[in-house]
C-alpha cells in the first residue's frame, strides 16, 4: 500500500497557512496531488506539530474557487465581469499599462502594495525597483504591524530582538548554551493560531511545561491570563504607562543591572540643562566631531569625549559618572550645567509613580509592583509582545519603555532573555533603498520620491515603505505628484488591513490601473483591471531567512496555471527593466543565499541550516564580542554605539528622546465628550485559530470552527443592553457601524468589547454594492486613517470608542 505516495519536506510560509511561517511540513503526494500534510517531526522549528490552517491545505489547494488563469476585467470595476486570458496576454497588458504610466507620470506614480510579512517583501521590491518606483507599501494605517516595533527597537539598540526560546540552536532546549527564562512577560499576545514576530507561539507552552512563569498583560481573559502568576488587565492603549510603572519599580528598588547600564547604555552621556539636548563634543572643543558625546570623568574630574567612531573614550581609565549635575566649560567660553542621561531618564520614570499608573491603566498598583518585581528578579527573563504595541499612535515611546526594561535588567542578548534577531547567515533578500542586499533601488536619488520619506524620520531611515495614510490621501490630492496605478499582491485591504475601507474602495476606483495578485477573488480584487492567480507555498520554490534557520520552500505540486508571486514578479521585472541582470529566478535565490556559502540547490538538499557559533546572526552576548557592528568593535549599531536610553536619532528628528506615555486620541480620557455617546472601549484584532486576518473564510473545515464575525461582550454589559448570546448587534461610532454576532463572555471586561477583524463572506454576492458583504461586518469601518503617531507610525486600532445595540427584526 501507499506505493504511489511520496512524502516531500518543505517549509510553510505565506499563502496556505497564511502565517509568518517557519514550520517544517511533510506533504504526502499521490499522482502529483496533495493527499495529506503533517508536521515534520525532525524539524527543529515545530517538531512535528502543525496548526489547523496548515492541516486544511488539501481543502485550500484544490478549492473550486481558486483562481486558475489570469482574468481581465470586461465590465465596470465592481461588476464582477471577467474574461480569462493567457499569461502572455496578461503580461503584455500589464507591461503596456505600466510603461504608459511611467512614460507620462514617472515610475513613482505606481504604488506596489503588500499585506503582512509573508514570502512577498523580496518579490514586490524586486518588481517595484526594476520598474523604478520606490513606493512599496504595507497597506495598514501607520504601518501598525511589526515594522514600527522593529524601527523603534532598532532606533535605540541598532538591531531588533525577540524572546529566546532556543530557536537559534539546532538542539533547541537541550543545547547546553541555552537557559530557559524563569519568567516571560506576555505583553498583548494571545496564542491561538498566532505565530507573530517569527516565533512559534507554542514554544512558550514548551517553556511553561519546563517551569517558566508567566506575567500576562492583556485586557482580555486570555489563555495566558488564566495561567499567569500575575495578570495585569490594563485599559487598551495604556501599555506605555504600564511599562513606565515597571521601570519605576525596578529603579526605585535598585533592581537594575548597574554594570550593563554603565558600560553598554548611554546613561553616562551628558545632557545640557539649558537646551535639554545631548552635549556634543564639538560644543566643548570646536575641533571635535558633533557625532561624539561627552561624559563627566570622576578620575580626572573633567569632561571626556566618547568617540562614536572608535567606540571608546578619548582618555584612559575613565570612570564616567551616572548621576549628578556638572558645570561644563564650552568652546565659546561660556559655562553650562549638564546632567546625565541616567538622571534625565530617572526623572522621566519618576513621573510614573504606581498610583498614577493605576489611574491610567486601571491595573492595581500592588499587582504592577509584584509583576515588576517578578520580572526583575527572574534571571533570565524574557518579554514577548504582540500587535497592540504597534496599534497605538505612541508606538515608539511605548516600545522604548519596554526595550529599556530588557536593557536595564541585563536581559539583552543573553540565554533566555531577549535575543538579537538577524537574518540567518545575514542572507538579506531586500534592503533599505541604496543599502546592501540583493534587491535594492538603483539609486538613493529615486528614494527621495518615496511618499513619507521626508516627513517621518523612521520611515526614511528604517522602513523601506511608502507611508500608507499619506499614499491614500495623495491618490485624492495628487499632491506633490499624481498616483495613477496600484499593484496589490498578498493583500486584501477592503476586507483585511485597510482602515476606513470605503475610503480605500474610492481610492482604488480613482486609479487608472489596478492589478491584483491573489489565490482567490476578494473584495479588493473586484476593484482590479487584471487579476493574476498566485500559488500556495506548496506550489513554489522560495527561501526563508526570517530569522533562523535558513530554509528553502520547495515546490511539491502544480495547480492549474497558477504562478508564484516571485515568478510573476520576476517575469515582469525582466520586461520592465532592460538592465535586469538575472536570467532565472534561481539565480536571484543563489545571489540572496551567497552569504551562507550555499546555493539554493545545496540548501534545498539540507532543508534548513543554522549559522555556526561565532556568526553575527547567532547568539549570545554579541555586543561584548564585537559581532554586531560592521567594524567588529564591541557595542551596538546605534549612532552612539550604545543602547540608547536617550535616543540620539529621536533628538535629531525633533521627537521626545526618552520613553514616556501618551494618551491615545479616542479614549474615555482623551475624548470624554465622545465617550458620553460611545461609552464602550472598542478593541479589535484578537486572533482566531481558524483564520489568518482576512483569509480562510472560504475553507469549509476552518469556517466551521468560527462561522460568524463575533463581538465579545461581558455578561453584565449584555444584560444592561438587552443583548443575548448569539444575537446580531450593531457596533457603532461616529465613523461607521458594522453588524456582528454577540458572544456573551467573561473574556472581556465590562467596559470593553472585542470585535473580530478581517471579515467578508466569500459565499455572498461578489459584485457591488455587496462586495461579498464586506462592508456589513468590517470593523475597520469604525477606525479612521491619519491618526498616526508623531513619527508616522502606529494607529489607534485597538482602542476606539463605540456603542452596541441590538439589530432590529427588520435589519437582520
Amino acid at each position, binding site marked *: 500500500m501507499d506505493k504511489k505516495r511520496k512524502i516531500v519536506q518543505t517549509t510553510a510560509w505565506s499563502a496556505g497557512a497564511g502565517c509568518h511561517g517557519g514550520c517544517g511540513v511533510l506533504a504526502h503526494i499521490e499522482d502529483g496531488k496533495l493527499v495529506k500534510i503533517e508536521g515534520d517531526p525532525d524539524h527543529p522549528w515545530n517538531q512535528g506539530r502543525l496548526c489547523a490552517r496548515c*492541516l486544511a491545505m488539501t481543502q485550500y489547494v484544490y478549492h473550486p474557487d481558486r483562481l486558475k488563469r489570469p482574468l481581465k476585467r470586461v465590465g465596470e470595476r465592481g461588476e464582477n465581469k471577467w474574461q480569462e486570458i493567457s499569461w502572455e496576454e496578461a503580461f503584455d497588458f500589464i507591461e503596456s499599462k505600466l510603461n504608459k504610466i511611467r512614460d507620462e507620470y514617472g515610475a513613482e506614480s505606481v504604488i506596489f502594495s503588500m499585506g503582512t510579512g509573508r514570502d512577498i517583501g523580496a518579490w514586490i521590491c524586486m518588481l517595484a525597483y526594476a520598474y523604478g518606483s520606490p513606493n512599496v507599501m504595507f497597506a495598514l494605517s501607520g504601518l501598525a504591524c511589526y515594522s514600527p516595533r522593529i524601527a523603534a527597537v532598532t532606533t535605540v539598540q541598532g538591531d531588533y530582538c525577540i524572546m529566546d526560546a532556543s530557536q537559534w540552536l539546532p538542539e533547541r532546549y537541550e543545547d547546553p548554551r541555552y537557559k530557559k527564562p524563569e519568567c516571560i512577560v506576555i505583553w498583548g499576545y494571545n496564542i491561538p493560531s498566532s505565530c507573530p514576530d517569527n516565533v512559534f507561539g507554542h514554544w512558550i507552552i514548551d517553556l511553561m511545561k519546563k517551569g517558566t512563569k508567566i506575567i500576562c498583560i492583556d485586557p482580555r481573559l486570555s489563555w495566558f491570563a*488564566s495561567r499567569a502568576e500575575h495578570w495585569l488587565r490594563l485599559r487598551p492603549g495604556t501599555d506605555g504607562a504600564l511599562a513606565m510603572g515597571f521601570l519605576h519599580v525596578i529603579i526605585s528598588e535598585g533592581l537594575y543591572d548597574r554594570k550593563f547600564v554603565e558600560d553598554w547604555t548611554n546613561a553616562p552621556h551628558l545632557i545640557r540643562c539649558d537646551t535639554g539636548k545631548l552635549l556634543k563634543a564639538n560644543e566643548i572643543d570646536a575641533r571635535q566631531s558633533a557625532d561624539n558625546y561627552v561624559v563627566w570623568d570622576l578620575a580626572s574630574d573633567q569632561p571626556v569625549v566618547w568617540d562614536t567612531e572608535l567606540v571608546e573614550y578619548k582618555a584612559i581609565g575613565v570612570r564616567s559618572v551616572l548621576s549628578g549635575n556638572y558645570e561644563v566649560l564650552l568652546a565659546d567660553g561660556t559655562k553650562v550645567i549638564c546632567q546625565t542621561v541616567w538622571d534625565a531618564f530617572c526623572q522621566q520614570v519618576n513621573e510614573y509613580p504606581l498610583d498614577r499608573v493605576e489611574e491610567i491603566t486601571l491595573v492595581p498598583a500592588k499587582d504592577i509592583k509584584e509583576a515588576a518585581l517578578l520580572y526583575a528578579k527572574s534571571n533570565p527573563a524574557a518579554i514577548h509582545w504582540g500587535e497592540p504595541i504597534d496599534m497605538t499612535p505612541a508606538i515608539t515611546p511605548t516600545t522604548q519603555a519596554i526595550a529599556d526594561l530588557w536593557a536595564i535588567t541585563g536581559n539583552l542578548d543573553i540565554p533566555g532573555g531577549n535575543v538579537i534577531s538577524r537574518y540567518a547567515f545575514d542572507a538579506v533578500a531586500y534592503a533599505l533603498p541604496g543599502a546592501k542586499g540583493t534587491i535594492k533601488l538603483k539609486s538613493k536619488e529615486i528614494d527621495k520620491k518615496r511618499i513619507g520619506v521626508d516627513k517621518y524620520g523612521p520611515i526614511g531611515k528604517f522602513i523601506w515603505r511608502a507611508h500608507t495614510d499619506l499614499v491614500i490621501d495623495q491618490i485624492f490630492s495628487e499632491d506633490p505628484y499624481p498616483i495613477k496605478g496600484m499593484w496589490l499582491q498578498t493583500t486584501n485591504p477592503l476586507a483585511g488591513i485597510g482602515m476606513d475601507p470605503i475610503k480605500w474602495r474610492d481610492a482604488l476606483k480613482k486609479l487608472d490601473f489596478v492589478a491584483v495578485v491573489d489565490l482567490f477573488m476578494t473584495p479588493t480584487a473586484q476593484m482590479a483591471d487584471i487579476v493574476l492567480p498566485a500559488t500556495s507555498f506548496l506550489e513554489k520554490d522560495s527561501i526563508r531567512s526570517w530569522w533562523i534557520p535558513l530554509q528553502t520552500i520547495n515546490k511539491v505540486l502544480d495547480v492549474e496555471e497558477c504562478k508564484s508571486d516571485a515568478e510573476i514578479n520576476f517575469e515582469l521585472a525582466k520586461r520592465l527593466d532592460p538592465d535586469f541582470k538575472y536570467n532565472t529566478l534561481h539565480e536571484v535565490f543563489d545571489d540572496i543565499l551567497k552569504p551562507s556559502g550555499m546555493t539554493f540547490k545545496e540548501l534545498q538538499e539540507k532543508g534548513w541550516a543554522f549559522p555556526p557559533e561565532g556568526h553575527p546572526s547567532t547568539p549570545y552576548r554579541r555586543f561584548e564580542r564585537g559581532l554586531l557592528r560592521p567594524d567588529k568593535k564591541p557595542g551596538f549599531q546605534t549612532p552612539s554605539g550604545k543602547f540608547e536610553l536617550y535616543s540620539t536619532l529621536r533628538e535629531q528628528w525633533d521627537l521626545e528622546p526618552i520613553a514616556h506615555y501618551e494618551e491615545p486620541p479616542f479614549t474615555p480620557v482623551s475624548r470624554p465628550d465622545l465617550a458620553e455617546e460611545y461609552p464602550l472601549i472598542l478593541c479589535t484584532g484578537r486572533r482566531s485559530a481558524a483564520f489568518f486576518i482576512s483569509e480562510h473564510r472560504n475553507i469549509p*473545515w476552518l469556517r466551521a470552527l468560527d462561522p460568524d464575525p463575533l463581538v465579545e461582550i461581558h455578561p453584565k454589559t449584555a444584560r444592561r443592553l438587552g443583548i443575548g448570546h448569539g444575537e446580531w448587534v450593531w457596533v457603532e461610532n461616529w465613523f461607521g457601524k458594522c453588524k456582528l454576532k454577540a458572544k456573551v463572555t*467573561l473574556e472581556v471586561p465590562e467596559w470593553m468589547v472585542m470585535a473580530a477583524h478581517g471579515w467578508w463572506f466569500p459565499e455572498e454576492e461578489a459584485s457591488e454594492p455587496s462586495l461579498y458583504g464586506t462592508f456589513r461586518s468590517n470593523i475597520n469601518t469604525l477606525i479612521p486613517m491619519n491618526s498616526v503617531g508623531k513619527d508616522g507610525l502606529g494607529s489607534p486600532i485597538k482602542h476606539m470608542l463605540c456603542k452596541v445595540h441590538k439589530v432590529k427584526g427588520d435589519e437582520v
Partner: protein
Amino acid sequence: MMERKNTGYGLLIDYEYCTGCHTCEIACAQEYKWPAGMSGMKVVESIQELPNDKAYLAYIPCPTELCVLCAGRTRKGQKPACVQNCMAACMKYGQVEELAKEINKPRMVLWVPR
C-alpha cells in the same frame, strides 16, 4: 464493519496546556476526510468564573463518536493524527493502564473513546 472491541487504549490529555488551537479537530478531519463540522475530536471551551473577579479559561479536547483512535495509524507505529500534530503536545496515546500511571499532575483527563 466488524464490531470494535474495547482495545484497552485511550488518550491522556493534559488540558492545562490545551490552547484551543483546534489542530486535533482538523488533523482528524484531514485523516478521515470528514466533511466540515465533523471530526473525531471536539474542543470545548469552558470559562469558569472564580472569586475576586477572576475566571479560568480552559479548552478540553473531547473525542467524539467518530473517534477510532486512529487504528490504521497506530498499527503502523504512528501516533494518532490529533496526537501527532497537537500544537501544545498535550495529548498522549497508549494503553489505558499505562496512561493512568502517568496522571501525575492536576488538570488531566483520560479518555476511552467509543
